[in-house]
């Protein structure tokens, strides 16, 4: 055998990446652009079909753009909306990579948010540099435990995670309803379900308040960036991530290689839950300041779509999260400016997912944009 570290010329060649194969411009840029364009076109058709005038359709899309990218405030809104989606979606993507379909992000977001609220109002007279991290941590832990239950059930008994996470979602919703209606969480003097307010020391600080105090973008977006880097590092740079990916791609091979599948399942679910829990914490500590029924805004469900759209890659998830955030922020503007219901955004989001997942559909609809494929 040759000296380690020294390779002959042939072996050296093996270390070259085939760059041209990896980057297919049509696949990476053209398809996503066209997918968005086609989804918007379809959205316009829906609007016209429901009696919205052509000028109003134009106004809507102008508003959609200005509301998401048109000003500092718009960008701030986009980032604010993108943060919880991206965090929860990172967890779901992690699950996909390990072959687990975690539908339970919604429940994890809810309980993470509740835990953060409780710590947020309960710890009085605590300096912010302790209080805020503790509140975030509480959110992450609550989410991790909630998801960990599903993971443990799967590892110990083989119970299918799709069923258990659906059930855990429903349980979490009821639990949140209960907590919000009863002391000590319920705001004193209120009859409706609403929590006490988070103390200023646990709030995620607004980042651009020096420009305009109304800009809502908050430190949660830094959390998102950290989470993207963390998940990327975990998946691709650590032995744990190697195990996650191996177990997800081929569980038999993972077992053959001496990996402990039960352990991996629990770990993946707990990590995913922690990220979803952070998404919830991010929402209550950065935007809402308290919890009320439906405070998650369905982020846990939308995050499934974001994870799928981002192809379960942390960077893809970030981009998908930003896109969805922009659509939400722009959608609100659209509703105000053009009087078109924000529900149109969900249609556009769904179509973007479909077209991204079915490039053949895009190619078949507008074939003239693409190069002719060789041999066909």
């Amino acid at each position: 055998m040759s000296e380690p570290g020294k390779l002959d010329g042939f072996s050296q060649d093996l270390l070259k990446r085939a760059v041209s194969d990896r980057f297919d411009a049509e696949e990476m840029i053209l398809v996503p652009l066209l997918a968005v364009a086609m989804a918007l076109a379809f959205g316009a058709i829906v609007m016209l079909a429901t009696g919205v005038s052509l000028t109003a359709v134009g106004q809507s899309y102008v508003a959609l753009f200005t509301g998401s990218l048109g000003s500092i405030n718009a960008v701030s809104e986009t980032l604010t909306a993108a943060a919880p989606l991206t965090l929860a979606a990172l967890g779901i993507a992690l699950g996909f990579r390990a072959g687990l379909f975690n539908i339970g992000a919604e429940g994890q977001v809810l309980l993470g948010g509740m835990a953060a609220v409780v710590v947020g109002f309960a710890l009085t007279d605590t300096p912010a540099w302790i209080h805020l991290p503790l509140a975030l941590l509480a959110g992450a832990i609550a989410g991790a435990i909630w998801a960990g239950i599903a993971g443990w059930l799967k590892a110990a008994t083989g119970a299918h995670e799709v069923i258990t996470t659906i059930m855990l979602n429903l349980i979490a919703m009821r639990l949140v309803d209960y907590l919000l209606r009863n002391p000590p969480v319920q705001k004193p003097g209120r009859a409706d379900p609403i929590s006490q307010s988070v103390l200023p020391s646990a709030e995620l600080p607004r980042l651009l308040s020096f420009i305009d105090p109304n800009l809502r973008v908050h430190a949660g977006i830094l959390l998102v960036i950290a989470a993207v880097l963390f998940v990327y590092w975990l998946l691709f740079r650590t032995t744990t991530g190697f195990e996650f990916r191996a177990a997800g791609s081929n569980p038999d091979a993972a077992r053959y290689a001496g990996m402990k599948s039960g352990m991996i399942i629990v770990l993946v679910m707990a990590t995913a839950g922690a990220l979803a829990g952070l998404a919830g914490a991010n929402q209550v500590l950065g935007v809402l300041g308290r919890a009320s029924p439906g405070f998650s805004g369905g982020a846990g469900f939308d995050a499934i779509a974001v994870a799928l759209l981002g192809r379960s890659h942390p960077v893809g998830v970030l981009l998908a999260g930003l896109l969805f955030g922009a659509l939400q922020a722009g959608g609100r503007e659209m509703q105000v400016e053009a009087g078109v219901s924000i529900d149109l955004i969900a249609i556009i989001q769904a179509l973007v997912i479909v077209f991204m997942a079915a490039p053949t559909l895009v190619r078949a609809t507008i074939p003239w944009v693409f190069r002719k494929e060789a041999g066909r």
Partner: protein
Amino acid sequence: MAVTDTAPVTTADIELARRRQKKVNGVILLGLAVFVAVAFGATSEGNAVFRLTLPRDAISIPNLVVPAAPYAYIVAGLLAFFGIRQFMRGGGRSTNVFLGIGLLLVVTAFLTWATAGKSFSLTGMLESTMVRAVPIALGGLAGVLSERVAVVNIAIEGMLLAGAFAGALIGSVLGGFVGILGAVAIGGLFGFILAALVVTHRVDQIIAGVAINLFVLGLTSYVSSQVLTKYTWLNNAPVFRPIDIPLLSDLPVIGPVLFRQNLFVYGALIMVLVATYYLFHTRSGLRARAVGEHPEAADTLGIDVYRTRYINVTIAGMVAGFGGAWFTLGSVGRFDEGMTGGRGYIGLAAMIFGRWHPVGALMAALVFGFADSLQQKLAILHTPIPSEFLAMAPYIATIVLVAGLIGRARPPAADGQPYIKE
């Protein structure tokens, strides 16, 4: 020939789990025994009176009177016996049976405890169980039909919602029956779209399902807020009233539960029977299952895998569309945004729970329906338990059952995998 196990859980894990499960189930049963004795036996006084006759009934039968505390102790004793038996022997098929019976006993003990010193209409609750099971059963059946040809159907939720919407809109304009037809057609359309996406365009089945759900939720909510709020006459559909089946509806208990229901209940029961016949006793059903288990083999025998998938998934969509119409035409007569409230996902759970069998899915749906109506009716009894916790009970029970079941049925072998010719 090696039977490839595509589930992410390996056989050795299952073996280990099986042994552990014996103990887990034993512990669960013993724990329940203690719980029933302490929580129900020690705290209840007097008799629980269960009314079996509804006001409209032709034949009236006496009320069922159960002494609450003794009954709780009897149940506790039985549970303890089952639990010890699990420890001693355990394993095998009987484990599931005992766990099931055990949970059923706990439910009866709970009901008795909650009713102690009061009276409660048991028949009324069973009647509403049936009604509430309908959308879940139909959702589950839609899941069975498409997963039997190996297409995972996450889109049931969207198909239900589309059915509910179409039922309300079309029903308002053209009447109830046309509304149902419209709901079935729209459900079928989304089934066809799902098939087109996953079969022809090879979109990942879960992605396609999630996208359809999101799309339907968006479209129905959009049209609802953009159009229906302005023209309310478009959202004012007739509701199907119960139809009494002559003679049978006069039977005590069974009559109101099974034979004094509306079109949707009868439809669901008939569809379950027809689907069972179709899947397991017809040529087309055999071919459909072959496509779900071993598409390549089916292909070599001249069965068109793609066509079979298209047809079955479209039918699944039609079934879900019918189930969706229940929400509007079968109950409130108007459409509200997101009114299916996750029933499609529960239907999916019912399908897995029911082992990919129509009757199994129906049974599982009845469990969910029972829990749903139990929670409603118990509010009347003023139990000290917060209603939110009662509402959680069915979901917790589902988790316990799914975790406690041994020898889970296998999904169709090719479930979720696209079939690529050449």
